[in-house]
C-alpha cells in the first residue's frame, strides 16, 4: 500500500488502467470457462479489443498530439489488408496460428506505419481543419485503392494487379478480390491475442507519454511557438506520434480482419473513422482509460439494444447524447464526485467530510 501511495499520480493512474483491463479480461475469461457467456457477447470480444486499440491509438493523435485526424480507419484498412495477405502466405509454412497472427500483426503494423510516414510527411505541416480535411481525403484514397486491388496467391508466389482482374494464376486462390475484399480469411484472431495487443499498445503509449519525446509532443500541443523556441523539432515529433498511432491502427486492423471470414474495403470508410473519434471524444481527450471504456460500451451498446428492434439506432443516438451531456455537465460531475468522496471516506472514517460533497 505504501508503495502505491509513494508512486506519482500518473504512474498510479496508469496502473489503475492496466488493472482495469486485466480485471475485465479475467472476468470474461472466467465466464468463458464456466460457459456463462452469451454467444452475442462472445462474438464481440475480438472486435471490442480492435476498437479499443483503435481508440487509444487515435487518442494519441487527437488527445496527446492535439491534431484532428479523420482518416484513422484508412490505417486500419492498410493494416488489415496487408496483414491478412501476410497471414495467408505465412500459414502455408507455419502451423501455429498464434505465431502467424503475431507475424501478420507485425507486417500490418509496418505497412500502416509506412503509409503513416507517406501521409504524415506532407500532411503534418498542416494543422487544425486543414489536417482534418486531408486525413479525411486520405482515408477515402486508401478505400479507393484497396477496392481496385486484386491479389492472388499460387505456387509461384503473390500476384498483384489493379482496376481489372487480369491475374494469370496457375491454380492458387484469390486473397483480395477487388470490391469483394478479402475472401477466405483465416480466422485466427482470439480474445487472448486481442487482450495482449491492448496491453502492449497501452504500455507503448504510457511510456511514450512519460518520456522526453512524449513531453515534447505535449508541448507542441499546448503551445507550438513556445515549443519551437526551445528547439523542439516540430515535424519529427509530430510524425513520431502520428506514425506510432498509425502502426497501432494497422495492428488493430489485422486483429479485426482475422476475426471475420470476409472483410470489404468499404467497411473502413469515414463512418468508421468518425465512430472511433466518437470513442475518443466521449472517453475524454488524452484519457486512455476513458477511451477504453467508451470503445467497449459503445461497441456493446447497439447489441444490447436489439430488443428495441427498429428503434434501436434511435435509442442508440439518444443514449449517446445523454452520455455526452452527462459526462460534461457540472452538476452531474459534482454529484458523482460527491458520491465518490462519500463512498471512499466512509471506509476510512465515519466522520465524513460530507459538507464538502
Amino acid at each position: 500500500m505504501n508503495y502505491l501511495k509513494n508512486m506519482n499520480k500518473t504512474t498510479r493512474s496508469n496502473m489503475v488502467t492496466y488493472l482495469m483491463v486485466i480485471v475485465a479480461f479475467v472476468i470474461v475469461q472466467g465466464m468463458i470457462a464456466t460457459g456463462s457467456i452469451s454467444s452475442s457477447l462472445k462474438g464481440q470480444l475480438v472486435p471490442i479489443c480492435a476498437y479499443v486499440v483503435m481508440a487509444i491509438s487515435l487518442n494519441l493523435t487527437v488527445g496527446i498530439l492535439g491534431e484532428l485526424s479523420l482518416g484513422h480507419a484508412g490505417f486500419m484498412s492498410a493494416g488489415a489488408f496487408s496483414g491478412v495477405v501476410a497471414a495467408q502466405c505465412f500459414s502455408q509454412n507455419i502451423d501455429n496460428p498464434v505465431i502467424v497472427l503475431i507475424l501478420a500483426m507485425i507486417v500490418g503494423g509496418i505497412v500502416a506505419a509506412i503509409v503513416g510516414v507517406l501521409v504524415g510527411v506532407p500532411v503534418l505541416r498542416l494543422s487544425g481543419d486543414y489536417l482534418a480535411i486531408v486525413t479525411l481525403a486520405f482515408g477515402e484514397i486508401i478505400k479507393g485503392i484497396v477496392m481496385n486491388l486484386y491479389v492472388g496467391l499460387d505456387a509461384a508466389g503473390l500476384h498483384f494487379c489493379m482496376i481489372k482482374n487480369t491475374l494469370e494464376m496457375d491454380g492458387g486462390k484469390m486473397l483480395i478480390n477487388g470490391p469483394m475484399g478479402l475472401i477466405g480469411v483465416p480466422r485466427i484472431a482470439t480474445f487472448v491475442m486481442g487482450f495482449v495487443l491492448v496491453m502492449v499498445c497501452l504500455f507503448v503509449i504510457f511510456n511514450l507519454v512519460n518520456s522526453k519525446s512524449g513531453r515534447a509532443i505535449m508541448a507542441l500541443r499546448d503551445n507550438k511557438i513556445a515549443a519551437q523556441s526551445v528547439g523542439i523539432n516540430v515535424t519529427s515529433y509530430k510524425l513520431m506520434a502520428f506514425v506510432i498511432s498509425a502502426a497501432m491502427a494497422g495492428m488493430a486492423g489485422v486483429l479485426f480482419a482475422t476475426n471475420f471470414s470476409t472483410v470489404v474495403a468499404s467497411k473502413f470508410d469515414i463512418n468508421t473513422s468518425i465512430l472511433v473519434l466518437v470513442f475518443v471524444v466521449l472517453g475524454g481527450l488524452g484519457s486512455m482509460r476513458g477511451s477504453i471504456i467508451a470503445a467497449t460500451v459503445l461497441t456493446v451498446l447497439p447489441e444490447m439494444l436489439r430488443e428495441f428492434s427498429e428503434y434501436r439506432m434511435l435509442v442508440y443516438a439518444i443514449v449517446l447524447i445523454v452520455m455526452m451531456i452527462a459526462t460534461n455537465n457540472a452538476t452531474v460531475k459534482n454529484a458523482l464526485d460527491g458520491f465518490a468522496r462519500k463512498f471512499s471516506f466512509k471506509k476510512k472514517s465515519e466522520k465524513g467530510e460530507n459538507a464538502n460533497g
Partner: protein
Amino acid sequence: MKMKKVIATAMVGFMAMGMLAGCGGGGAKDDAATAIKVGGTGPLTGGAAIYGLAVQRGAEIAVEEVNALGGVQFEFKMEDDAHDAEKAVNAYNALKDWGMQISLGSVTSTPGTATAAENDNDRIFALTPSASATTVTEGHDNVFQMCFADPNQGSASAQYIADQQLATKVGVIYKNDDVYSSGIYETFATRANELGLNIVSTTTFTTDSQNDFTVQLQDAKNAGADLLFLPMYYDAASLILSQANDMGYAPKFFGVDGMDGILTMEGFNAELAEGVMLLTPFSADADDERTKAFVAKYQELHGEVPNQFAADAYDCIYALYQACENAGATADMTAEELNDLMMKEFTSMTFDGLTGTGATWTAEGQVNKAPKGMVIQNGVYVGM
C-alpha cells in the same frame, strides 16, 4: 479520478449484467421445444432495407401457413444486420442466444459470406434466400442458396439475349465496387464473348458516383448500343432510366433480379420502366394458385406487390418444411442433428416453389432452376 473509478465500477457491473441477461436468453432453449427455431439476418434498416424487409415479410407469411398445415412447427425471427458483415455476425450470435436451430443465413452477399463461415463453424444448417455470391456457399458444406448464384445470372442473361436475338450491339453499365454487380458482369462478359454478342460499351460507377450517369449513357449512345445491360440494384437503375429518358436515348434495358423492386420505389416514375426486361425467377402476375394466394396475402398485409426476395424467403420456409417432414425432424433435436438431416435432404430432394419448379441443389449448395424472362408492361411484370 475518483469519478472515473466509479464509472469503471459501474461499467463492469453493466457488462456483468449484460452477460447475465444473455444467459437467461440461452437457457430458454429447452423450454420451448414445440417449434423449430428458424432465424435469419438481413438489412432491416439502411440502404438495402427493402430486401431485408421483403425477406422478413415473405418468411413470416410462409411460417404462418406452414404452421397451419400441422406437422413440423416453425418459429421465425429476423435480426437486423444493416448490410454489414460485422453486424451480421453480431446478429447471428444474438439469434444463437435465442436458440436458433436452422438458419436462413443472410439476405445480402457480403454479410452472407461472413455468417456462412459461422454457420459452418457451429454446424447450423443455412438456406439463404438471396445472398447470391459464390463466396457464400464456397467451402461450406451446410450452406445452401435459394436464389441463383451470381455467375449463373450473368451467363443466363447473355444466353437469353443471344437466344432471343434482342440486340446486335450491347452496352453494359455496372457498379465496380459491388460484389453482386461486378460478379454478374464478369460472367456476362465471358459468356457474351463465347456467344458472339457484340459488347460495344462497358462503363462503371461506384457508390460515391451513382448520382450521375450521363457520361456512361453518352458513351453507350455514341457506341450505338441498342440494348443496355444493367446488372445492379434498382436504386441506381432507376436513375439510369430517368437520365436516359432526359437525354432522349431509348435502348432496350435488360436487368437482373436486383432490378426487381423498381416499380414500388418511392419517387420513381414507373412509366419510365415500361419495356424494361429482367431475368428473375419470380413474377407476381403468374396465374398459378399459390403465387396468386401469396401475392394477395402480401398485398393485404403490407400494401405492396411482393418482389422476388419475398418469394425466395417464402420458398425457403416451404423447402425447409418439406425437408423437415421428409426427414422426420422434430423441434427437440439440436441444431447439429438437424444440420445433418437437412444436408442429406437438400442434396437429394426436388422442390416446387414460387420461384421455380423442380428445383434441386448441388452438393456445393447452389440451386438448379429455370429463370424466367420478364418485361414490364403497364406497370406490372409480364412473362416474355
